[in-house]
């Protein structure tokens, strides 16, 4: 058993290896952790490198992969890379759900199956509420994309990020996603974390390292403690949750991560449900 596999089995670190494919995005969401936007500098893990990290992750003992950004589907060659990655480990890709043209969905069609899912963000059943945070026509685009992906056999999960979702609003949202064929088990509700653009706008709740699950996260800038680590504020990368600059070989950040996580205790502090 590898050191990573042992650490995962002992719940010292999470089994999912996260990869920030890129930081740029076609949206400018109000609470974005990474200040992603169309015009931000291109910082990417190119598709071949994503595939290489996936193979390393499997060999190291990770149990699944997560791809996030930015908007991952802006990365050239992503569908083919995802196919290769999900052949290594079950893969979840986070998306804003606005780019799923028929052509892109056709490219994703070979990924239909249990080892691949797309998690799309939708923050409210009400278009005006959702679009106020995520941009004009976002709600309509997401609602168009989900059936298109489902028809192609792609498993779709839904992620809601909100600090103001009361019971009735959550009930309306759940009614909506059930109607789209997304079961409750595939709907994640999570708080806004006060980092990145959310911090600049005073949104969300603070999350210290002890409250963030230890999930190794690779970016073009290095390896971080969690997908909430490589945040950007005022155009500057936060480094307080940086683990190592080295991302390959994967053994380097993984060993450092295990050492840090083993020293920080496990499960003692209230954890933020983030993914």
């Amino acid at each position, binding site marked *: 058993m590898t050191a990573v596999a042992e650490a995962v089995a002992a719940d010292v670190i999470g089994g999912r290896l996260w990869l920030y494919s890129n930081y740029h995005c076609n949206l400018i969401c109000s609470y974005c952790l990474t200040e992603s936007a169309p015009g931000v500098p291109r910082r990417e893990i190119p598709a071949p490198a994503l595939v290489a990290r996936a193979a390393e992750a499997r060999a190291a003992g990770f149990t699944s992969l997560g791809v996030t950004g930015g908007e991952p589907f802006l990365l050239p060659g992503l569908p083919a890379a995802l196919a290769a990655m999900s052949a290594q480990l079950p893969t979840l890709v986070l998306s804003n759900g606005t780019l799923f043209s028929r052509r892109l969905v056709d490219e994703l069609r070979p990924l239909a199956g249990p080892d691949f899912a797309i998690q799309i963000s939708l923050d409210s059943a009400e278009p005006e509420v959702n679009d106020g945070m995520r941009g004009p026509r976002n709600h309509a685009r997401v609602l168009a994309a989900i059936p298109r992906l489902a028809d192609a056999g792609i498993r779709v999960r839904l992620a809601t990020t909100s600090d103001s979702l009361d019971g009735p609003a959550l009930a309306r949202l759940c009614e909506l996603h059930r109607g789209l064929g997304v079961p409750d088990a595939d709907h994640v509700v999570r708080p806004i974390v006060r980092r990145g653009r959310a911090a600049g706008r005073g949104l969300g709740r603070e999350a210290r*390292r002890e409250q963030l699950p230890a999930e190794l996260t690779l970016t073009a800038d290095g390896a971080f*403690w969690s997908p909430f680590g490589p945040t950007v504020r005022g155009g500057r990368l*936060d*480094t*307080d*949750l*940086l*683990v*190592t*600059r*080295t991302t390959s070989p994967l053994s*380097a950040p993984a060993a*450092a991560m295990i050492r*840090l996580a083993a020293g920080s205790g496990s499960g003692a502090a209230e954890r933020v449900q983030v993914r």
Partner: protein
Amino acid sequence: MAEVELLDRGRAPLLAQPFYAAGDPGPIAAALAHVPEVMETALPFIDSIFGRTAVDPRLKEIVVLRVSAANRCRYCVQTHTRVAAGMGFGGDELRALLGEGRPPPGWSPLERVVLAFAQALSERPETAVGLLRPHLEEPAIVELVTLGAATEMLNRFATALALPA
């Protein structure tokens, strides 16, 4: 102003944070923190070779300050002039270490040899050990060479990054 951001405690990466526990770790650490996996091995190395060892601290400071002056490292010269003064080196001794005067008459033969060794290490390193060999055992020679070489590295590091003294 330094050429790179000197990371403060709030921006210190996880592996770097222990080095901030006692307060400001200084500009070398605050720069190295950008690459925490290097920092966590480099700083203990630096501490071990610049800290207390079997070799007389006075001899070590002669090497550090003379090498730094020969390399015209502003940061290292300023910081180690203060260190040397704190250790009791007098004005004429400091001038000798900075290359601005001759060693004072009270210096021992060994101190004079170490000063010459430090100068040679910067200018003709292949000749440097030969100066020490009649006076020191091999462990001390290796340590002084390591110290001088580490000083050379830090001289380049501090000068290239324009670290503030």
